[in-house]
């Protein structure tokens, strides 16, 4: 076990865990930030997508000891204020994207990171950036449309 300081969603946390623990399980088990989901544990499905310094990353593949002072953002941390929604989340609701919903927070985190680096992504760029995020219910078309809508709304 090792004591570590983490910065998650702008807040500082002290954790005492095995240094090899993936960030996913520190978030879920220790910090009770359960919006980051467990899907495969091998970085193949994207349900656990978070941001590290603003870039999308699969948290099941990131040992907590590797984080250091880097900033972690989870789905709980992308909202402008408590009770409000991020424009990408709003687009998700407007297009009624979700079916079971389990993968959608990971999808949203990947989409937010994509729009940060490419505010106006082409269809191909969306497909390529999102391809690490599986939706077993098959809501891909709506996800793509929601990303396009969020991109549009941010240019208004």
């Amino acid at each position, binding site marked *: 076990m090792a004591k570590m300081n983490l910065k998650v969603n702008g807040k500082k946390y002290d954790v005492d865990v095995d240094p090899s623990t993936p960030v996913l399980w520190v978030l879920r088990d220790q910090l009770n930030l359960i919006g980051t989901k467990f899907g495969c544990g091998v970085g193949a499905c994207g*349900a656990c997508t978070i941001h590290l310094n603003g870039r999308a990353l699969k948290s099941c593949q990131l040992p907590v000891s590797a984080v250091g002072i880097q900033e972690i953002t989870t789905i*709980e941390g992308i909202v402008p204020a408590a009770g409000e929604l991020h424009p990408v989340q709003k687009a998700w609701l407007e297009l009624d994207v979700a079916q079971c919903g389990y993968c959608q927070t990971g999808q949203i985190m990947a989409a937010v990171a994509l729009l940060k680096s490419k505010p106006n992504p082409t269809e191909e760029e969306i497909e390529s950036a999102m391809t690490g995020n599986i939706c077993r219910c098959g809501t891909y078309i709506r996800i793509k449309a929601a990303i396009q809508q969020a991109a549009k709304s941010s240019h208004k």
Partner: protein
Amino acid sequence: MEKSTNNQSRRSFLKVSSLTGGGMMIGFSWLANLIPNEALAAANTTNEWVKLTGFIQITPDNKVKIFNPNPEFGTNVMTSLPMMVNEELQADWSKVIVEMGDFDTPRFKSQFTGGSRGMAQAWKPLRKAGATARLMLMQAAANEWNVPVSELTVANGVVSHKATNKTANYGALATAASKLTAPTNVELKKISEFSLIGTPQKNKVGKNIVAGDSLFTMDYKHEGMLIAMVIHPPAFGMQLKSFDATEAKKMPGIKDVFDIQVYKDGYTRAGFDTRAFNKLIAVVGNSTWEVMNARKKVVANWEPIQTTKEMVAAWGSKKEETVPGGLESTDEHMKQMLAMQKNPAKVLRKDGDPETAFSKAKKVLERTYSAPFLSHNPMEPISCFAHITDEKAYFVAPIQIPEMMKQNIMANLDLPADKIEMKLTRMGGGFGRRAYGHYIVEAGHISKKVKAPIKLIYTREDDMTNGIYRPSYMVSYKAAIDENNNVTAIAIKGGGIPEGAVHENRFPAGAFENYIAEGWDIPSNITIGAFRAPGSNFIASAEQTFLDELAETIGKDPLDYRIELLKKAKANPVGKNNEYDADRYIGVLELVKQKSNWGNTDKNVKRGVAAYFCHSSYAAHVIDVRMKDGQPVVDKVVTAMDCGFVVNPEGAKNMVEGAVVDGIGNALFGGMRFEKGVPVQKNLIQYRIIRHREAPKKIDVHFVQNTIDPTGLGEPPFPPVFGALANALYKATGKRLYNQPYLTELNNSTKS
């Protein structure tokens, strides 16, 4: 808690109860399954919530809550079922709160998500519940204002009396209404009078989903909760012999390591009690990562199983099921199935004289189709919370069919029915996998042993290698063709491991004077179960690709040929028990023909068609593909559906789009292989699931407009996707595809 004042006749589906502490409940015979959970019961005694029905609650501060009775795994019953209630209740839909109902052990009935039955079963009772509540609220207003009910109007949860200019919201009327006798003659709106049902409505839980709120069992937490994982044999056909947990128990955070026997010896299984392995090693500890690490330190010894027999009482019959010993392999399975195709099989249906027709045929077209086992792979791996104390057994479970778990939990965990409480959570996908609740019993055993609240978690590997898979199938279709290119007979023969998919009474039965369908099964120790449109998902692919090739062989347009056969079956149906409505079948084909502009597209557009009927709804797809760098790209899918009256067009469209994507993915990539009993694919790196860039660029969904009572959508659009895709790929590549996954066959053919 409840004092029943049941004075209704047995045929009535309403039951009026009064609650101590005030308030009232109207239960329903179909859905008399919603017990007030503890929080609600407490709220009730303080009169904060007044119960009007088992699934409608209205507070004095005018909050309207509807409890959705059916487990939700993504078909959006959390929105569509409450829409049915509110169509008649006429509360303000934008403010209606929807919550998942709990599982009521003592009185549960049909809480079932699967088989696409939710809509059809709910259609009348839910609307009647809403209407009953509304009438009681109106009566309360009439009594208060001393005016006739007939002079009252209702809109958005407000009752008005125009002449006296009086208005009252439901909240203000709820307490008085709860003291009235429920009306017995409740008239429901006609479809033409609907204002909510039939309009596109967004997911009521959408905001919680995008926020990442705790909705799933995986997210559930409880004071003092431990994490549990199990270790199962590495291969089907193996069982636990012994294990050494000395090192594992020394690992940090570990509470205990022990073995559990899931079902008792001699337990008679019910239909959904399938489980792959009966003896498991359980590892229990403080946190997920600690348990995962300790699990690796357990040294287990496995041994081969002997052939055993298990009693199964399901679907109205009790029979002995053989679980054969041996380590099975996919290559061996293929050989076994091919051999079975050559042996005599059980005749399932025979019309006319197919033997003579085949002997006289000028030409015979015969094709054999196969498909592998499939893993459901719901995004949320299997999980279950259990807390068993002397007082009660509390479960938080993702389960499609809670009622089917009752006798299993009682028998294998030695629990009386009245001690079982189950909270149902939203499920991160199911596709049939979560109909089999062995994991609830496993969690129960573990909680009992460690005397603590535990959450059992399967990793993806556990989920995929301890599966209840879609069976592996093979079928051949044979057509006798005369000198005038008329098809004079059809013969279908097929089976599966361990069960086949031939539906002898489905189309094209009824369209041919001479017809035979035969089936066989090969026992297996690989566990199988329902997978989105069971059986249909394979047989539709074979039937619809065969009809395509047959149409080509006799020089007909594939879409028109299907319509021609259906017209024939409608005018002069051959045989009895044909399980389809030819008109509705034709309806979806005509609609997809029109909407896809069939026959009038550029010759560079490579397209395929398929249609199928199962689970009470009709579906047809036209799929356009092109090949890019040797890989198929689906440009467009046009779908026509007939699922009766569409309750929520928005949710319905989403369902169909998802089924199309799922179908394309499973058709191209899906496949679970076994080598000496060992599942070859263990995680999503090896088991390919369709991803963003492989999804169709566009899906156009059209519904046949009618006023037939609504039927399901979760399954029916799925089976015909496979055939439409294979037929389109033939147009794009010149290669007919017979063996799934199609991409493997396509790649093999281009290599050779």
